[in-house]
């Protein structure tokens, strides 16, 4: 089906527990203790341990890559970290809910390729955690 402005992408939900944050810390080499030490997080004025903004952004980006089916179709991706995702030390952790829709679609270039702008909404506990989360995606001529 030809994509159109206003189309919604399939929504995505992911749970983060403390173990997931530790795992992301290792994978990304971002060992800032606000992402694993409650003592440290509270000491710098946070309510509790918070998820890495880049983890939230990465999971939100999966909404887009799942839609395109190609990691390499992403031309740009940006987001503001407007509110922390607080991750309590329990078995449930925090829930991130991600939705997105096509906000703009360029005319085809000489090769037939178009650029779609996907506007992403990510929320936890019913409140948005990313601001201006936008990905630009290349759509090949036959899509």
């Amino acid at each position, binding site marked *: 089906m030809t994509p159109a402005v206003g189309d919604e992408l399939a929504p995505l939900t992911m749970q983060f527990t403390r173990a997931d944050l530790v795992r992301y810390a290792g994978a990304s080499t971002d060992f800032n203790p606000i992402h694993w030490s409650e003592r440290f997080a509270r000491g710098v004025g946070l309510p509790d341990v918070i998820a890495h903004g880049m983890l939230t952004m990465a999971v939100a980006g999966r909404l*887009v890559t799942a839609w395109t089916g190609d990691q390499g179709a992403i031309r740009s991706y940006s*987001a503001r970290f407007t509110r922390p995702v607080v991750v309590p030390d329990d078995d449930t952790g925090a829930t991130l809910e991600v939705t997105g829709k096509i906000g703009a679609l360029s005319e085809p270039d000489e090769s037939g390729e178009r650029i779609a702008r996907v506007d992403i909404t990510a929320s936890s506990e019913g409140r948005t955690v990313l601001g201006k989360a936008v990905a630009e995606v290349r759509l090949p001529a036959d899509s």
Partner: protein
Amino acid sequence: MSPDLSYVGKALPPSAPYVVGREKLREFASAIGETDPCCHDVAAARAAGHPDLIAPPTFPGSFTMAVMMELLGDPDFGWDFDRMVHGDQGIRFQRPVYAGDELVTTLHVDDLRTRAGSHFLSLRCEVATVDGEAVLTTNATLVTQAA
């Protein structure tokens, strides 16, 4: 503690090459819940037309953050690292990142402003291969409390 304004407008010397490893890409993809076979299975990646495993789009945020940390942790720069939060992040690709890439990051200190009791630092990383092919650009704003 106040950051050194003389860094603004400057670029730091290029980083040592960062070699994108297959196992690191798999580990990163798993940590973000990405099951795309092109991030895990070399044969699947090649069948899809990629030279090797492909990195998820936010992967460059990790190795460029490590370069930024060198500046942020440098006492001469005067940044309050403990109270830092990540304000925003952008990534723009000339091409995707693949396993086997050897990438050099050049950090640019684009801006440093103080308002409403916080320092806002704008950093840009220009990432190229060791052969000089431009691969991507990242932009990040980091925020810390002004003393």
